[in-house]
């Protein structure tokens, strides 16, 4: 049960129930769709990028608590960040949620640290990573749907 509490901690449950930046932003100039065929998670991500900076970001869609909370937290983290910073964060986040030997110190991860528990659930890593993969597709302006498979 402890690992479950770690995975489904209150902050994650709160983001699941009341996700931040949920909806469509009209001025989006980058969009991408992310899909996880394993569980049917589907997110549409909207970004407004100007001069290499993510001015605004939002999402819509349905998914499990992990994917929804991950997307929600990601949007709060990336608003105002440069695309280069977003890329850096993504790399760190991937290390955090997998058992990478060079795993980053969760203390350095800010709000993303709450996803450290995911590494104990290898089948759920894709759920946590979906938002970030989709974000990259959006930055590259790849219009094809991103799949975790």
């Amino acid at each position, binding site marked *: *049960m402890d*690992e*479950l*509490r770690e*995975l*489904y901690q209150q902050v994650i*449950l709160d983001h699941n*129930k009341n996700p931040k930046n949920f909806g469509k932003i009209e001025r989006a100039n980058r969009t991408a769709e992310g899909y996880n065929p*394993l*569980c*049917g*998670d*589907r997110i549409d991500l909207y970004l407004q990028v100007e001069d290499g900076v993510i001015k605004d970001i939002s999402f819509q869609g*349905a*998914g*499990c*608590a*992990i994917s*929804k909370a991950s997307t929600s937290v990601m949007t709060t983290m990336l608003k105002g960040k440069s695309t280069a910073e977003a890329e850096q964060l993504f790399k760190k986040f991937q290390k955090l949620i997998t058992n990478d030997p060079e795993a980053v110190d969760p203390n350095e991860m800010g709000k993303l640290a709450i996803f450290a528990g995911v590494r104990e*659930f290898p*089948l*759920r890593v894709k*759920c946590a990573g979906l938002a970030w993969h989709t974000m990259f597709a959006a930055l590259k302006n790849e219009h094809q749907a991103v799949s975790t498979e």
Partner: protein
Amino acid sequence: MITLVDSPMINQPPTQSVNGFDVERIREDFPILRQKVRGKPLVFLDSAATSQKPQVVIEALSHYYQAENANIHRGVYYLSELATNAYEGARLKVKEAINANSIKEIVFVRGATEGINLVASSYGRKNVKEGDEIVISAMEHHSNIVPWQMLCEEAGAKLRVIPINDEGELIVDEFEKLLNKKTKLVAIVHTSNSLGTINPIKRLVDIAHDRNVPVLVDGAQALPHGKIDVKKLGCDFFVFSSHKVFGPTGVGVLYAKEALLEKMAPYQGGGDMIKSVTFEKTLYNDLPYRFEAGTPNIAGVIGLGKALDYVAGIGYEKIAAYEHELLNYATAALSTIKPLRIIGTAKEKAAVISFVIEGIHPHDVGTILDRDGIAVRTGHHCTQPVMERFNVPATSRASFAFYNTKAEADFLVKGLHNVINLMN
């Protein structure tokens, strides 16, 4: 096979005996069920995905490789004869289990999926032309959708879909309306893997046959829950998978009426499906070997034969009666959970319960139950159109076999209360 004489349970009260069905005794036959998962007893409620295997099946595989392994049909030596006899013996068992007319009608394939692909590729390509129609239902598994879609695309034919009602039952009147002169085949699931619905196959076959339309039945989920008699059903094709009827993976059966099979072109070319080969001309083998190119899954087929023996030893009727009681019990128990909604409430139903819990995604349900040792399936169950029909992205599914108990249904309910507590 199921004798109580040597049972270690003989001096204990039969805790779960229903109408002489001693489930605790039967569980002894399945070694995997003794396993603990994360320190908790395994509660396996995913038999619709794949069933567990009794010791006799596991031993049959091991015995084949230890004492009989040789290629079949060709060798003139002792081992090859043993292997051939065991392989062909299993074909006879399948023929008897589903009451086919002849072993010529029993083709071994890799699974129900390959059986459907074989029919689509061989029968379909020859008989389905531009403007023709194939009828399937809204509750088909992807394996009974995609091969027909591929065929329709190739031939320029159209796929028509029989709708289902809110209970997850086929609307038979709509089926009748869909049939017309262009209809070349009906492909329909016997028992739905995601809803549990048991379709009135005999009735559907009669309706289709009145219009001279042949019917393929996807029986993958039907055989594990009750007796199948292809003569009574009257269907033209019937497919099922070994691994869902307590046999090994990688083996399935295509039953086809001999007259149809006789006219069908081979599905794959290779060894064993030929009588003679020259560069000018190849003479194909007799039925059913014409459809079994290459060395088959010999051990798997022998294992399937053992599995069918095992199920027959318990008795299809007893299994059906016990599972029906389990279904009723589990349905009632799950219905006590307020935010839970069962998807698929057909009157005729197998022991498969799909459900959603308001505000909690099935994937989270599955992860949390797993920590209690409970294995359920979560997702779209390879039936995305069914999910769309019921407007849910996914469901959790508990599917029961005759080795499951009422106590396990109670565990599930307890586990779901944990889920709800944890997620709120």
